């Protein structure tokens, strides 16, 4: 599982740094490294670009996992160069950026856009598999999530827009319900594609979600 990110256009990053002359760079060694958006090579490339734009970079680091308590330790350890900077540019996902903001009193700027939480497919592309709806239907849909894989998040069967097994919204994208249908058919259950009415409950996904894990 990875949190999938993309780098913001450099122009946008530069604009967000307006007013700063000195920028400390933070990368993350986990998902952004895998996505090649905020690992060491990317952080060094951004460093060169910032220097080229006339900014100074008093230091940089790659936190092994920017979204957990390692961020606090790393920020403390880098206290001196961070103190020299006007702000921190963080090449991490939304969790990582917010975690850095939590442990540092410096202003924080995100260098990435967080896209989705996903997995690599056979072709090495990252794909979204779960949108955390809070009411899992996978038991009825042959283990394929229609809310994630269908553009319209349909839960009561396909629309009329499938064409050669693909989605009319994007001809590159397989129709979620055709994938479900094919898997059910392989189990001799093609007639079970949609049998009961499902009405979504968005209370389960009302932001921000919190949960309490009771300590044993």
């Amino acid at each position, binding site marked *: 599982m990875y949190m999938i990110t993309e780098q913001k256009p450099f122009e946008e990053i530069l604009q967000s740094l307006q007013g700063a002359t000195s920028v400390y760079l933070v990368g993350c060694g986990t998902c952004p490294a895998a996505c090649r958006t905020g690992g060491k090579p990317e952080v060094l490339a951004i460093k060169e670009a910032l220097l080229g734009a006339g900014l100074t970079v008093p230091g940089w680091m790659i936190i092994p996992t920017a979204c957990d308590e390692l961020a606090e330790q790393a920020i403390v350890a880098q206290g001196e160069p961070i103190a020299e900077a006007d702000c921190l540019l963080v090449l991490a996902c939304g969790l990582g950026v917010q975690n850095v903001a939590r442990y540092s009193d410096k202003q924080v700027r995100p260098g990435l856009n967080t896209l989705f939480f996903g997995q690599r497919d056979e072709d090495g592309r990252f794909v979204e598999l779960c949108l955390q709806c809070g009411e899992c239907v996978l038991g009825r849909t042959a283990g394929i999530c229609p809310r994630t894989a269908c553009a319209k998040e349909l839960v*009561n069967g396909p629309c009329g827009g499938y064409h050669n097994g693909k989605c009319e919204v994007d001809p590159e994208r397989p129709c979620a319900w055709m994938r479900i249908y094919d898997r059910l058919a392989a189990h001799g259950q093609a007639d079970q594609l949609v049998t009961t009415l499902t009405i979504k409950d968005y209370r389960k996904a009302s932001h921000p979600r919190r949960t309490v894990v009771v300590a044993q």
Partner: protein
Amino acid sequence: MGKLMERLTAAQFAVTAEIGPPKGVNLEETLRMADLLGPLVDAVNVTDQQSAVMRVGSLATCRLLVERGIEPVFQLTCRDRNRIALQSDLLSAAVLGVENVLCLTGDYVTLGDHPQAKPVFDLDSVSLLHAASELTLGRDLAGKTLTGAPAYFLGATVSPGAEPLEPQIQKMEMKVKAGARFFQTQAVYDTERFARFIRDTHHLGVPIMAGIVLLKSAGMARFMNSNVAGVNVPEPLIAEMDGAKSKRQKSVEIAARLINELGDICQGVHIMPIGWEQLVPDVLVAAGLREAVPT
């Protein structure tokens, strides 16, 4: 009871045609089309921001038709409204004298002219039909009691040319269970395939109106074949269109022929003229459904 419901529930052949409200508040042309089609058909469908392009609302236009003595079919999609707005619009429709409602999921936002918009899809075609049926029973989707229950004649859509067809039929069954009492289909050109579809859905016992989209050219036919899901214009029809001197005349001829062939095996036709509204009277006369008006 409206004319459409009366005819379809009495197992009589029914004809509907579609108009689309404009982008902007000048409704002159739209109402001219409604006045042209209204007297020839049992009801006029008004699209709900078709292809996800922002326009005047379907409900407001439906009310204007009611005021002109034309029976409308209010097309309602789940793309732009959550269940609160959908149910409210359904109640508003009843208050405004609009009884026929075609419940659709709706085209996806990125196909339209505001691709940045939030796609809603809180409900879908099936759960929308269910919500509308609940309203007629005097309660809303949350189970709350209504002061005065509305009455609707609820319709839905199906794509008879979809491949595979079985998922469409299973969804159709869900729509019937949720309250759909008639179906209007995606454009049909392949009559053999449509005949199979009619056989496979006979058990549902629900009237089906075949979708007729006026062909404008061979190019349009080829475009639909490769880009519109569930539409298959057979090669001989394309060749016929290609070789025609007058495309308009050929379009009328083909539509009338389709209406006759399809009309024999289903309970009505739904005509989508897409800009060639003025040809609809000729189509209906050529199909023998209406008498020619002496000029």
